[in-house]
Protein backbone atom coordinates (compact mmCIF):
# COMPACT_ATOMS: atom_id res chain seq x y z
CA UNK A 1 0.00 0.00 0.00
CA UNK A 2 1.27 3.39 -1.00
CA UNK A 3 -0.26 5.36 1.82
CA UNK A 4 1.63 6.76 4.74
CA UNK A 5 -0.08 7.50 8.01
CA UNK A 6 0.41 11.15 8.81
CA UNK A 7 -0.19 13.62 11.61
CA UNK A 8 -3.24 13.81 13.84
CA UNK A 9 -6.01 15.37 11.74
CA UNK A 10 -8.92 15.00 14.13
CA UNK A 11 -8.58 15.05 17.88
CA UNK A 12 -11.51 14.47 20.22
CA UNK A 13 -10.90 15.62 23.77
CA UNK A 14 -12.97 14.63 26.81
CA UNK A 15 -16.24 14.40 24.94
CA UNK A 16 -19.31 13.93 27.15
CA UNK A 17 -22.82 13.69 25.80
CA UNK A 18 -26.03 12.95 27.62
CA UNK A 19 -29.69 12.90 26.71
CA UNK A 20 -31.61 14.01 29.76
CA UNK A 21 -30.32 11.78 32.51
CA UNK A 22 -28.84 9.16 30.21
CA UNK A 23 -25.12 9.42 29.69
CA UNK A 24 -24.38 8.34 26.13
CA UNK A 25 -20.71 9.26 26.16
CA UNK A 26 -18.59 10.12 29.15
CA UNK A 27 -15.20 11.71 28.91
CA UNK A 28 -14.05 10.09 25.71
CA UNK A 29 -10.80 11.11 24.05
CA UNK A 30 -9.13 9.68 20.99
CA UNK A 31 -7.42 10.95 17.91
CA UNK A 32 -7.48 10.11 14.24
CA UNK A 33 -4.37 10.36 12.09
CA UNK A 34 -4.35 11.36 8.47
CA UNK A 35 -4.80 8.49 5.96
CA UNK A 36 -5.47 5.86 8.59
CA UNK A 37 -8.44 3.55 9.01
CA UNK A 38 -9.69 4.03 12.54
CA UNK A 39 -12.33 1.66 13.83
CA UNK A 40 -14.76 2.23 16.69
CA UNK A 41 -16.12 -0.96 18.17
CA UNK A 42 -18.20 -1.89 21.16
CA UNK A 43 -21.32 -3.78 22.17
CA UNK A 44 -24.80 -2.48 21.32
CA UNK A 45 -25.59 0.81 22.98
CA UNK A 46 -21.96 1.58 23.68
CA UNK A 47 -22.25 5.03 22.10
CA UNK A 48 -20.50 4.38 18.79
CA UNK A 49 -23.08 6.07 16.57
CA UNK A 50 -23.38 8.93 19.05
CA UNK A 51 -19.65 9.42 18.67
CA UNK A 52 -19.96 9.79 14.89
CA UNK A 53 -22.91 12.12 15.34
CA UNK A 54 -20.75 14.30 17.57
CA UNK A 55 -17.95 14.37 15.00
CA UNK A 56 -20.16 15.62 12.20
CA UNK A 57 -22.30 17.91 14.30
CA UNK A 58 -25.65 16.15 14.41
CA UNK A 59 -25.31 15.98 18.20
CA UNK A 60 -23.73 18.66 20.28
CA UNK A 61 -21.71 17.40 23.26
CA UNK A 62 -22.14 19.04 26.67
CA UNK A 63 -18.44 18.89 27.38
CA UNK A 64 -15.19 18.49 25.53
CA UNK A 65 -13.72 19.85 22.38
CA UNK A 66 -13.07 18.78 18.84
CA UNK A 67 -9.79 19.74 17.22
CA UNK A 68 -9.90 19.51 13.46
CA UNK A 69 -6.62 20.32 11.69
CA UNK A 70 -5.53 22.51 14.61
CA UNK A 71 -8.84 24.38 14.83
CA UNK A 72 -10.70 24.07 18.10
CA UNK A 73 -14.47 23.67 18.25
CA UNK A 74 -16.76 23.14 21.24
CA UNK A 75 -19.12 21.43 18.84
CA UNK A 76 -19.54 20.96 15.12
CA UNK A 77 -22.59 21.69 13.01
CA UNK A 78 -23.51 19.55 9.99
CA UNK A 79 -22.81 22.48 7.67
CA UNK A 80 -19.40 23.20 9.17
CA UNK A 81 -18.44 19.54 9.10
CA UNK A 82 -19.49 19.23 5.45
CA UNK A 83 -17.43 22.26 4.51
CA UNK A 84 -14.44 20.94 6.43
CA UNK A 85 -14.50 17.81 4.28
CA UNK A 86 -16.19 15.35 6.61
CA UNK A 87 -18.62 12.99 4.89
CA UNK A 88 -20.53 10.09 6.36
CA UNK A 89 -22.75 7.16 5.63
CA UNK A 90 -25.63 6.07 7.81
CA UNK A 91 -26.32 2.90 9.75
CA UNK A 92 -29.96 2.66 8.75
CA UNK A 93 -29.64 4.20 5.28
CA UNK A 94 -30.62 7.81 4.85
CA UNK A 95 -30.76 7.96 1.08
CA UNK A 96 -33.08 10.17 -0.92
CA UNK A 97 -35.50 7.41 -1.84
CA UNK A 98 -37.45 9.20 -4.53
CA UNK A 99 -34.34 10.21 -6.48
CA UNK A 100 -32.31 8.11 -8.87
CA UNK A 101 -28.89 6.74 -7.99
CA UNK A 102 -27.35 9.38 -10.23
CA UNK A 103 -29.24 12.22 -8.54
CA UNK A 104 -28.36 10.91 -5.09
CA UNK A 105 -24.66 10.95 -5.87
CA UNK A 106 -24.93 14.27 -7.74
CA UNK A 107 -26.55 15.72 -4.60
CA UNK A 108 -23.34 14.85 -2.79
CA UNK A 109 -21.54 17.39 -4.98
CA UNK A 110 -23.94 20.13 -3.96
CA UNK A 111 -21.27 22.06 -2.06
CA UNK A 112 -19.04 22.35 -5.10
CA UNK A 113 -21.79 23.68 -7.36
CA UNK A 114 -21.80 27.42 -7.84
CA UNK A 115 -24.48 28.34 -10.42
CA UNK A 116 -27.21 30.52 -8.91
CA UNK A 117 -30.94 30.09 -9.18
CA UNK A 118 -31.29 32.25 -12.30
CA UNK A 119 -28.48 30.55 -14.14
CA UNK A 120 -30.08 27.22 -13.31
CA UNK A 121 -33.46 28.44 -14.54
CA UNK A 122 -31.92 29.29 -17.91
CA UNK A 123 -29.93 26.05 -17.88
CA UNK A 124 -27.85 26.86 -20.95
CA UNK A 125 -24.56 28.44 -19.98
CA UNK A 126 -22.86 28.13 -16.60
CA UNK A 127 -25.43 25.79 -15.03
CA UNK A 128 -25.18 23.25 -17.83
CA UNK A 129 -21.39 23.39 -18.02
CA UNK A 130 -21.17 22.83 -14.29
CA UNK A 131 -23.71 20.03 -14.41
CA UNK A 132 -21.74 18.21 -17.10
CA UNK A 133 -18.40 18.64 -15.32
CA UNK A 134 -19.82 17.22 -12.10
CA UNK A 135 -21.58 14.48 -13.98
CA UNK A 136 -18.21 13.31 -15.29
CA UNK A 137 -16.88 13.18 -11.71
CA UNK A 138 -19.95 11.33 -10.51
CA UNK A 139 -19.58 8.80 -13.30
CA UNK A 140 -16.06 8.07 -12.03
CA UNK A 141 -17.56 7.24 -8.64
CA UNK A 142 -20.25 5.12 -10.28
CA UNK A 143 -17.54 3.20 -12.14
CA UNK A 144 -15.50 2.83 -8.98
CA UNK A 145 -18.44 1.36 -7.06
CA UNK A 146 -19.53 -0.77 -10.02
CA UNK A 147 -23.11 0.47 -10.09
CA UNK A 148 -23.29 1.57 -13.74
CA UNK A 149 -26.29 -0.62 -14.48
CA UNK A 150 -28.53 1.04 -11.90
CA UNK A 151 -27.66 4.71 -12.35
CA UNK A 152 -31.14 5.68 -13.53
CA UNK A 153 -33.07 3.58 -11.00
CA UNK A 154 -34.85 5.29 -8.09
CA UNK A 155 -32.98 4.31 -4.94
CA UNK A 156 -36.12 3.12 -3.17
CA UNK A 157 -36.38 0.19 -5.58
CA UNK A 158 -32.87 -1.14 -5.00
CA UNK A 159 -31.94 -4.04 -2.75
CA UNK A 160 -30.25 -3.24 0.54
CA UNK A 161 -26.70 -4.10 -0.45
CA UNK A 162 -26.78 -1.77 -3.42
CA UNK A 163 -28.36 1.00 -1.38
CA UNK A 164 -25.40 0.75 0.97
CA UNK A 165 -23.12 1.29 -2.00
CA UNK A 166 -25.09 4.31 -3.18
CA UNK A 167 -24.85 5.73 0.33
CA UNK A 168 -21.07 5.32 0.12
CA UNK A 169 -21.10 6.88 -3.35
CA UNK A 170 -22.95 9.94 -2.14
CA UNK A 171 -20.41 10.43 0.65
CA UNK A 172 -17.51 9.94 -1.81
CA UNK A 173 -18.98 12.54 -4.16
CA UNK A 174 -18.11 15.16 -1.55
CA UNK A 175 -14.43 14.24 -2.06
CA UNK A 176 -14.07 14.08 1.70
CA UNK A 177 -10.85 14.12 3.65
CA UNK A 178 -12.45 12.25 6.49
CA UNK A 179 -15.06 9.62 5.80
CA UNK A 180 -17.25 8.37 8.64
CA UNK A 181 -18.81 4.98 7.99
CA UNK A 182 -21.55 3.84 10.33
CA UNK A 183 -21.72 0.04 10.10
CA UNK A 184 -21.06 -0.19 6.37
CA UNK A 185 -21.39 -3.95 6.43
CA UNK A 186 -24.39 -4.46 8.69
CA UNK A 187 -26.89 -6.91 7.27
CA UNK A 188 -24.74 -7.97 4.33
CA UNK A 189 -23.83 -11.44 3.15
CA UNK A 190 -20.22 -12.56 2.89
CA UNK A 191 -19.79 -11.56 -0.74
CA UNK A 192 -21.25 -8.12 -0.22
CA UNK A 193 -19.00 -7.69 2.81
CA UNK A 194 -15.96 -8.59 0.78
CA UNK A 195 -16.94 -6.07 -1.89
CA UNK A 196 -17.48 -3.38 0.70
CA UNK A 197 -14.11 -4.13 2.36
CA UNK A 198 -12.44 -3.82 -1.01
CA UNK A 199 -14.11 -0.47 -1.63
CA UNK A 200 -13.08 0.85 1.76
CA UNK A 201 -9.48 -0.24 1.35
CA UNK A 202 -9.38 1.18 -2.20
CA UNK A 203 -10.80 4.52 -1.10
CA UNK A 204 -8.22 4.72 1.63
CA UNK A 205 -5.40 3.64 -0.65
CA UNK A 206 -6.21 5.51 -3.86
CA UNK A 207 -7.61 8.76 -2.53
CA UNK A 208 -5.76 8.84 0.79
CA UNK A 209 -9.06 9.39 2.58
CA UNK A 210 -8.98 9.07 6.35
CA UNK A 211 -11.65 6.63 7.43
CA UNK A 212 -13.42 6.31 10.77
CA UNK A 213 -15.64 3.29 10.82
CA UNK A 214 -18.00 1.54 13.17
CA UNK A 215 -18.35 -2.15 12.61
CA UNK A 216 -19.62 -5.20 14.43
CA UNK A 217 -17.90 -7.85 12.38
CA UNK A 218 -14.70 -8.41 14.37
CA UNK A 219 -12.97 -10.26 11.55
CA UNK A 220 -13.40 -7.27 9.27
CA UNK A 221 -12.34 -4.74 11.88
CA UNK A 222 -9.21 -6.62 12.84
CA UNK A 223 -8.26 -7.11 9.19
CA UNK A 224 -8.68 -3.66 7.75
CA UNK A 225 -8.20 -1.11 10.51
CA UNK A 226 -4.96 0.45 11.63
CA UNK A 227 -6.09 1.38 15.11
CA UNK A 228 -9.18 0.50 17.09
CA UNK A 229 -10.95 2.31 19.89
CA UNK A 230 -13.31 0.27 22.06
CA UNK A 231 -16.34 1.78 23.79
CA UNK A 232 -18.57 0.20 26.38
CA UNK A 233 -21.47 1.94 28.14
CA UNK A 234 -20.25 5.30 26.88
CA UNK A 235 -16.73 4.84 28.23
CA UNK A 236 -13.53 4.15 26.41
CA UNK A 237 -12.10 0.82 27.53
CA UNK A 238 -9.42 0.23 24.95
CA UNK A 239 -7.43 1.97 22.26
CA UNK A 240 -4.60 0.79 20.04
CA UNK A 241 -3.56 -1.56 17.26
CA UNK A 242 -5.95 -4.45 16.58
CA UNK A 243 -3.69 -7.01 18.24
CA UNK A 244 -3.30 -4.96 21.40
CA UNK A 245 -7.00 -4.42 21.65
CA UNK A 246 -7.73 -8.08 21.15
CA UNK A 247 -5.46 -8.94 24.07
CA UNK A 248 -6.91 -6.27 26.36
CA UNK A 249 -8.67 -7.96 29.31
CA UNK A 250 -11.27 -5.17 29.64
CA UNK A 251 -12.28 -5.62 26.03
CA UNK A 252 -12.57 -9.37 26.39
CA UNK A 253 -14.71 -8.87 29.46
CA UNK A 254 -17.01 -6.42 27.67
CA UNK A 255 -17.52 -8.73 24.74
CA UNK A 256 -17.62 -12.10 26.40
CA UNK A 257 -18.79 -11.25 29.90
CA UNK A 258 -17.03 -12.41 33.05
CA UNK A 259 -17.31 -15.29 35.37
CA UNK A 260 -16.89 -14.09 38.88
Amino acid at each position, binding site marked *: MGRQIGEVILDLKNISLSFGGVKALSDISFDVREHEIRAIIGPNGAGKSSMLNVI*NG*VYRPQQGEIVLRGEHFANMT*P*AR*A*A*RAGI*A*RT*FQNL*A*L*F*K*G*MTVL*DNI*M*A*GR*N*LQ*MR*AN*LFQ*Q*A*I*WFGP*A*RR*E*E*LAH*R*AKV*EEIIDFLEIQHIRKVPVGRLPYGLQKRVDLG*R*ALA*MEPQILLLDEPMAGMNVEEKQDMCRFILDINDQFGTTIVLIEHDMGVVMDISDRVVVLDYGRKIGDGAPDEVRANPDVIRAYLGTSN
Partner: protein
Amino acid sequence: MIYRENGQFKTSYAADQQIFPIRQDRIAILALLIFAGVGVPLFADEYLFRAILIPFLILSLAALGVNLLVGYCGQITLGAGAFMAVGAYAAYNFLIRVDGMPMLIAVLLGGVVAALVGIVFGVPSLRVRGLYLAVATLAAQFFWDWAFLRIRWFTNYSSSGSVSVAELDFFGWRIETPVEKYLLCLGLLILFALVAKNLTRGAIGRQWMAIRDMDVAAEVIGIRPMYAKLSAFAVSSFYLGVAGALWGFVHLGSWEPAAFSIDRSFQLLFMVIIGGLGSIMGSFFGAAFIVVLPIFLNQFLPWLGGLVGVTISTAAVSHAEFMIFGALIIFFLIVEPHGLARLWSTGKEKLRLWPFPH
Protein backbone atom coordinates in the same frame (compact mmCIF):
# COMPACT_ATOMS: atom_id res chain seq x y z
CA MET B 1 -43.04 -1.75 -31.69
CA ILE B 2 -42.69 1.85 -32.79
CA TYR B 3 -41.85 3.13 -29.34
CA ARG B 4 -38.32 1.77 -29.06
CA GLU B 5 -35.09 3.50 -28.29
CA ASN B 6 -32.94 0.74 -29.78
CA GLY B 7 -30.08 2.17 -31.76
CA GLN B 8 -30.27 5.56 -30.09
CA PHE B 9 -26.88 5.62 -28.44
CA LYS B 10 -25.78 8.51 -26.29
CA THR B 11 -22.16 9.42 -26.65
CA SER B 12 -22.02 12.36 -24.27
CA TYR B 13 -23.45 13.27 -20.90
CA ALA B 14 -25.06 16.28 -22.54
CA ALA B 15 -27.09 13.98 -24.78
CA ASP B 16 -28.07 11.94 -21.74
CA GLN B 17 -29.30 15.00 -19.84
CA GLN B 18 -31.85 16.16 -22.39
CA ILE B 19 -35.37 16.72 -21.17
CA PHE B 20 -36.68 14.06 -23.53
CA PRO B 21 -33.87 11.56 -24.05
CA ILE B 22 -35.94 9.30 -26.32
CA ARG B 23 -36.34 10.46 -29.91
CA GLN B 24 -39.98 9.39 -30.21
CA ASP B 25 -40.81 11.55 -27.19
CA ARG B 26 -39.16 14.56 -28.77
CA ILE B 27 -41.15 14.11 -31.96
CA ALA B 28 -44.39 13.66 -30.03
CA ILE B 29 -43.85 16.76 -27.92
CA LEU B 30 -42.93 18.84 -30.94
CA ALA B 31 -46.07 17.67 -32.71
CA LEU B 32 -48.13 18.49 -29.64
CA LEU B 33 -46.68 21.99 -29.40
CA ILE B 34 -47.31 22.68 -33.08
CA PHE B 35 -50.83 21.37 -32.69
CA ALA B 36 -51.43 23.57 -29.64
CA GLY B 37 -49.93 26.65 -31.26
CA VAL B 38 -51.29 26.33 -34.79
CA GLY B 39 -53.92 23.62 -34.98
CA VAL B 40 -56.04 24.55 -31.98
CA PRO B 41 -56.48 28.25 -32.91
CA LEU B 42 -57.69 27.14 -36.35
CA PHE B 43 -60.62 25.01 -35.29
CA ALA B 44 -61.51 25.73 -31.67
CA ASP B 45 -64.55 27.91 -31.02
CA GLU B 46 -64.93 30.66 -28.47
CA TYR B 47 -66.62 28.47 -25.87
CA LEU B 48 -63.77 26.00 -25.96
CA PHE B 49 -61.23 28.77 -25.41
CA ARG B 50 -63.10 30.54 -22.64
CA ALA B 51 -64.43 27.60 -20.69
CA ILE B 52 -61.72 25.01 -21.12
CA LEU B 53 -58.46 25.92 -22.77
CA ILE B 54 -57.60 29.21 -21.07
CA PRO B 55 -58.54 28.02 -17.55
CA PHE B 56 -56.64 24.82 -18.22
CA LEU B 57 -53.47 26.67 -19.23
CA ILE B 58 -53.55 29.10 -16.30
CA LEU B 59 -54.39 26.46 -13.71
CA SER B 60 -51.63 24.24 -15.15
CA LEU B 61 -49.23 27.06 -14.44
CA ALA B 62 -50.54 27.34 -10.89
CA ALA B 63 -50.40 23.57 -10.41
CA LEU B 64 -46.81 23.65 -11.63
CA GLY B 65 -46.03 26.14 -8.87
CA VAL B 66 -47.75 24.03 -6.22
CA ASN B 67 -45.97 20.94 -7.46
CA LEU B 68 -42.54 22.57 -7.13
CA LEU B 69 -43.26 23.22 -3.48
CA VAL B 70 -45.34 20.21 -2.46
CA GLY B 71 -44.13 17.58 -4.90
CA TYR B 72 -40.45 18.43 -5.15
CA CYS B 73 -39.64 20.08 -1.84
CA GLY B 74 -42.19 18.19 0.26
CA GLN B 75 -43.58 21.28 1.99
CA ILE B 76 -47.34 20.95 2.05
CA THR B 77 -49.28 24.15 1.46
CA LEU B 78 -52.90 25.18 1.71
CA GLY B 79 -52.17 28.79 0.87
CA ALA B 80 -51.82 28.49 -2.90
CA GLY B 81 -54.95 30.54 -3.53
CA ALA B 82 -53.59 33.35 -1.35
CA PHE B 83 -50.40 33.58 -3.37
CA MET B 84 -52.46 33.71 -6.56
CA ALA B 85 -54.47 36.53 -5.02
CA VAL B 86 -51.32 38.40 -4.02
CA GLY B 87 -50.03 38.09 -7.59
CA ALA B 88 -53.32 39.26 -9.08
CA TYR B 89 -53.79 42.27 -6.80
CA ALA B 90 -50.12 43.27 -6.94
CA ALA B 91 -50.18 43.16 -10.75
CA TYR B 92 -53.41 45.16 -10.72
CA ASN B 93 -51.90 47.83 -8.51
CA PHE B 94 -48.75 48.06 -10.61
CA LEU B 95 -50.91 48.45 -13.69
CA ILE B 96 -53.13 51.24 -12.39
CA ARG B 97 -50.63 53.10 -10.22
CA VAL B 98 -47.64 53.18 -12.55
CA ASP B 99 -48.13 55.14 -15.74
CA GLY B 100 -47.48 53.26 -18.94
CA MET B 101 -46.79 49.98 -17.16
CA PRO B 102 -46.85 47.20 -19.78
CA MET B 103 -49.28 44.42 -18.94
CA LEU B 104 -46.72 41.62 -19.10
CA ILE B 105 -44.28 43.43 -16.80
CA ALA B 106 -47.11 44.03 -14.32
CA VAL B 107 -47.93 40.33 -14.39
CA LEU B 108 -44.31 39.36 -13.77
CA LEU B 109 -43.97 41.96 -11.00
CA GLY B 110 -47.10 40.46 -9.47
CA GLY B 111 -45.19 37.18 -9.44
CA VAL B 112 -42.20 38.82 -7.77
CA VAL B 113 -44.36 40.30 -5.02
CA ALA B 114 -46.00 36.92 -4.51
CA ALA B 115 -42.52 35.36 -4.26
CA LEU B 116 -41.54 37.80 -1.50
CA VAL B 117 -44.78 37.14 0.36
CA GLY B 118 -44.17 33.41 -0.16
CA ILE B 119 -40.78 33.67 1.51
CA VAL B 120 -42.33 35.37 4.55
CA PHE B 121 -45.08 32.77 4.88
CA GLY B 122 -42.54 30.02 4.23
CA VAL B 123 -40.60 30.84 7.37
CA PRO B 124 -42.71 28.51 9.59
CA SER B 125 -41.52 25.61 7.39
CA LEU B 126 -38.11 25.93 9.02
CA ARG B 127 -39.67 24.82 12.29
CA VAL B 128 -42.74 22.75 11.54
CA ARG B 129 -43.59 20.20 8.91
CA GLY B 130 -46.40 18.09 7.53
CA LEU B 131 -49.89 18.83 8.73
CA TYR B 132 -48.67 21.55 11.08
CA LEU B 133 -47.12 23.39 8.18
CA ALA B 134 -50.38 23.00 6.26
CA VAL B 135 -52.13 24.79 9.09
CA ALA B 136 -49.49 27.53 9.11
CA THR B 137 -49.94 28.13 5.38
CA LEU B 138 -53.68 28.18 5.92
CA ALA B 139 -53.00 31.33 7.93
CA ALA B 140 -51.69 32.95 4.73
CA GLN B 141 -54.94 32.07 3.01
CA PHE B 142 -57.13 33.61 5.70
CA PHE B 143 -54.93 36.64 6.14
CA TRP B 144 -54.94 37.59 2.47
CA ASP B 145 -58.63 36.81 2.04
CA TRP B 146 -59.24 39.28 4.81
CA ALA B 147 -56.72 41.86 3.56
CA PHE B 148 -58.11 42.10 0.04
CA LEU B 149 -61.64 42.35 1.36
CA ARG B 150 -60.99 44.92 4.07
CA ILE B 151 -57.97 47.01 3.08
CA ARG B 152 -59.51 49.24 0.46
CA TRP B 153 -56.23 50.53 -0.92
CA PHE B 154 -55.56 47.18 -2.59
CA THR B 155 -58.77 47.41 -4.59
CA ASN B 156 -58.25 51.10 -5.36
CA TYR B 157 -61.26 52.03 -3.20
CA SER B 158 -63.69 50.54 -5.70
CA SER B 159 -67.20 50.68 -4.24
CA SER B 160 -68.19 47.10 -5.05
CA GLY B 161 -64.89 45.62 -3.89
CA SER B 162 -64.26 44.06 -7.27
CA VAL B 163 -61.54 45.24 -9.59
CA SER B 164 -61.28 45.01 -13.35
CA VAL B 165 -58.71 45.36 -16.06
CA ALA B 166 -60.16 47.09 -19.08
CA GLU B 167 -57.76 46.24 -21.82
CA LEU B 168 -54.77 43.99 -22.23
CA ASP B 169 -51.86 45.46 -24.07
CA PHE B 170 -48.94 43.21 -24.97
CA PHE B 171 -46.22 45.68 -25.96
CA GLY B 172 -48.47 47.47 -28.42
CA TRP B 173 -50.44 44.39 -29.43
CA ARG B 174 -54.00 44.60 -28.11
CA ILE B 175 -55.12 41.29 -26.74
CA GLU B 176 -58.84 41.04 -27.25
CA THR B 177 -59.93 37.83 -28.90
CA PRO B 178 -59.93 34.51 -27.07
CA VAL B 179 -57.36 33.18 -29.55
CA GLU B 180 -54.91 35.89 -28.62
CA LYS B 181 -55.50 35.31 -24.93
CA TYR B 182 -55.01 31.61 -25.46
CA LEU B 183 -51.73 32.13 -27.30
CA LEU B 184 -50.46 34.49 -24.61
CA CYS B 185 -51.20 31.94 -21.89
CA LEU B 186 -49.77 29.10 -23.95
CA GLY B 187 -46.53 30.97 -24.58
CA LEU B 188 -46.06 31.82 -20.92
CA LEU B 189 -46.92 28.29 -19.83
CA ILE B 190 -44.37 26.73 -22.19
CA LEU B 191 -41.71 29.14 -20.97
CA PHE B 192 -42.49 28.53 -17.31
CA ALA B 193 -42.70 24.78 -17.74
CA LEU B 194 -39.26 24.81 -19.34
CA VAL B 195 -37.85 26.83 -16.44
CA ALA B 196 -39.47 24.46 -13.94
CA LYS B 197 -37.89 21.51 -15.71
CA ASN B 198 -34.49 23.21 -15.71
CA LEU B 199 -34.71 23.92 -12.00
CA THR B 200 -35.84 20.44 -11.08
CA ARG B 201 -33.21 18.63 -13.14
CA GLY B 202 -30.41 20.81 -11.77
CA ALA B 203 -28.70 21.39 -8.47
CA ILE B 204 -31.53 23.28 -6.78
CA GLY B 205 -34.03 20.56 -7.72
CA ARG B 206 -31.82 17.96 -6.12
CA GLN B 207 -31.61 20.10 -2.99
CA TRP B 208 -35.40 20.34 -2.83
CA MET B 209 -35.87 16.61 -3.29
CA ALA B 210 -33.13 15.84 -0.78
CA ILE B 211 -34.93 17.96 1.82
CA ARG B 212 -38.17 16.19 0.94
CA ASP B 213 -36.76 12.67 1.18
CA MET B 214 -34.36 12.85 4.14
CA ASP B 215 -33.57 16.20 5.67
CA VAL B 216 -30.92 15.03 8.16
CA ALA B 217 -28.85 13.42 5.42
CA ALA B 218 -29.33 16.50 3.26
CA GLU B 219 -27.83 18.66 5.97
CA VAL B 220 -24.90 16.30 6.40
CA ILE B 221 -23.92 16.67 2.74
CA GLY B 222 -23.99 20.43 3.12
CA ILE B 223 -27.45 21.39 1.89
CA ARG B 224 -28.79 24.39 3.79
CA PRO B 225 -32.40 23.60 4.74
CA MET B 226 -33.27 27.27 5.07
CA TYR B 227 -32.10 28.16 1.58
CA ALA B 228 -33.67 25.08 0.00
CA LYS B 229 -37.06 25.52 1.66
CA LEU B 230 -37.35 29.27 1.24
CA SER B 231 -36.21 29.14 -2.38
CA ALA B 232 -38.88 26.52 -3.03
CA PHE B 233 -41.47 28.80 -1.43
CA ALA B 234 -40.22 31.76 -3.47
CA VAL B 235 -40.22 29.99 -6.84
CA SER B 236 -43.53 28.30 -6.16
CA SER B 237 -45.16 31.56 -5.09
CA PHE B 238 -43.73 33.31 -8.13
CA TYR B 239 -45.47 30.77 -10.37
CA LEU B 240 -48.67 31.11 -8.39
CA GLY B 241 -48.48 34.89 -8.49
CA VAL B 242 -48.10 34.97 -12.25
CA ALA B 243 -50.89 32.44 -12.61
CA GLY B 244 -53.09 34.53 -10.32
CA ALA B 245 -52.41 37.69 -12.31
CA LEU B 246 -53.25 35.90 -15.54
CA TRP B 247 -56.38 34.44 -13.97
CA GLY B 248 -57.55 37.92 -13.06
CA PHE B 249 -56.39 39.81 -16.14
CA VAL B 250 -56.92 37.29 -18.91
CA HIS B 251 -59.51 34.81 -17.75
CA LEU B 252 -61.84 36.79 -15.48
CA GLY B 253 -61.27 40.39 -16.54
CA SER B 254 -62.84 41.60 -13.35
CA TRP B 255 -62.73 39.78 -10.06
CA GLU B 256 -63.19 39.90 -6.32
CA PRO B 257 -61.26 38.17 -3.53
CA ALA B 258 -63.61 35.15 -3.63
CA ALA B 259 -61.93 34.16 -6.91
CA PHE B 260 -58.90 33.10 -4.89
CA SER B 261 -60.59 31.57 -1.89
CA ILE B 262 -59.57 28.46 -0.02
CA ASP B 263 -61.50 26.38 -2.54
CA ARG B 264 -58.88 27.35 -5.08
CA SER B 265 -56.08 26.24 -2.75
CA PHE B 266 -57.68 22.85 -2.29
CA GLN B 267 -58.36 22.54 -5.99
CA LEU B 268 -54.70 23.14 -6.78
CA LEU B 269 -53.56 20.69 -4.13
CA PHE B 270 -55.89 18.03 -5.56
CA MET B 271 -54.50 18.71 -9.01
CA VAL B 272 -50.96 17.90 -8.02
CA ILE B 273 -51.97 14.90 -5.94
CA ILE B 274 -54.06 13.41 -8.72
CA GLY B 275 -51.64 14.44 -11.45
CA GLY B 276 -48.57 13.18 -9.66
CA LEU B 277 -46.41 14.74 -6.96
CA GLY B 278 -42.91 15.54 -8.11
CA SER B 279 -43.66 15.46 -11.81
CA ILE B 280 -43.87 18.37 -14.24
CA MET B 281 -46.02 16.31 -16.57
CA GLY B 282 -48.28 15.43 -13.65
CA SER B 283 -49.18 19.07 -13.09
CA PHE B 284 -50.67 19.20 -16.59
CA PHE B 285 -52.52 15.92 -16.15
CA GLY B 286 -53.95 17.08 -12.84
CA ALA B 287 -55.07 20.43 -14.22
CA ALA B 288 -56.65 18.76 -17.23
CA PHE B 289 -58.44 16.25 -15.04
CA ILE B 290 -59.89 18.86 -12.71
CA VAL B 291 -60.75 21.48 -15.33
CA VAL B 292 -62.01 19.29 -18.13
CA LEU B 293 -63.72 16.43 -16.37
CA PRO B 294 -66.58 18.41 -14.75
CA ILE B 295 -67.34 20.10 -18.06
CA PHE B 296 -67.20 16.80 -19.86
CA LEU B 297 -69.56 15.21 -17.35
CA ASN B 298 -71.85 18.19 -17.65
CA GLN B 299 -72.18 17.62 -21.40
CA PHE B 300 -72.00 13.85 -21.35
CA LEU B 301 -74.64 13.05 -18.73
CA PRO B 302 -77.62 14.65 -20.50
CA TRP B 303 -76.50 12.96 -23.69
CA LEU B 304 -76.32 9.62 -21.91
CA GLY B 305 -79.77 10.29 -20.44
CA GLY B 306 -81.11 11.04 -23.90
CA LEU B 307 -79.73 7.74 -25.10
CA VAL B 308 -81.87 5.76 -22.68
CA GLY B 309 -84.81 8.11 -23.05
CA VAL B 310 -84.57 9.93 -19.71
CA THR B 311 -84.41 13.69 -19.47
CA ILE B 312 -82.11 14.72 -16.66
CA SER B 313 -82.72 18.08 -15.05
CA THR B 314 -79.87 20.58 -14.82
CA ALA B 315 -79.84 20.30 -11.05
CA ALA B 316 -79.56 16.54 -11.18
CA VAL B 317 -76.71 16.82 -13.66
CA SER B 318 -74.73 19.09 -11.40
CA HIS B 319 -75.32 16.79 -8.40
CA ALA B 320 -74.28 13.75 -10.40
CA GLU B 321 -71.29 15.66 -11.66
CA PHE B 322 -70.04 16.17 -8.10
CA MET B 323 -70.62 12.56 -7.16
CA ILE B 324 -68.97 11.05 -10.20
CA PHE B 325 -66.11 13.48 -9.96
CA GLY B 326 -65.50 12.57 -6.32
CA ALA B 327 -65.75 8.87 -7.07
CA LEU B 328 -63.25 9.18 -9.90
CA ILE B 329 -60.75 10.98 -7.67
CA ILE B 330 -60.98 8.17 -5.13
CA PHE B 331 -60.77 5.56 -7.88
CA PHE B 332 -57.59 7.05 -9.30
CA LEU B 333 -55.97 7.43 -5.91
CA ILE B 334 -56.63 3.76 -5.13
CA VAL B 335 -55.48 2.48 -8.51
CA GLU B 336 -52.40 4.66 -8.63
CA PRO B 337 -51.56 6.65 -5.51
CA HIS B 338 -48.63 8.24 -7.31
CA GLY B 339 -50.95 9.96 -9.70
CA LEU B 340 -51.68 10.04 -13.39
CA ALA B 341 -48.05 10.80 -14.22
CA ARG B 342 -46.99 7.44 -12.80
CA LEU B 343 -49.76 5.73 -14.74
CA TRP B 344 -48.42 7.43 -17.85
CA SER B 345 -44.81 6.36 -17.27
CA THR B 346 -45.85 2.80 -16.44
CA GLY B 347 -47.74 2.77 -19.72
CA LYS B 348 -44.66 3.95 -21.56
CA GLU B 349 -42.51 1.29 -19.90
CA LYS B 350 -44.97 -1.35 -21.06
CA LEU B 351 -45.05 0.12 -24.54
CA ARG B 352 -41.28 -0.15 -24.82
CA LEU B 353 -41.50 -3.89 -24.37
CA TRP B 354 -44.71 -4.46 -26.31
CA PRO B 355 -45.52 -6.87 -27.89
CA PHE B 356 -42.88 -9.07 -26.29
CA PRO B 357 -43.14 -8.42 -22.58
CA HIS B 358 -40.73 -11.18 -21.56
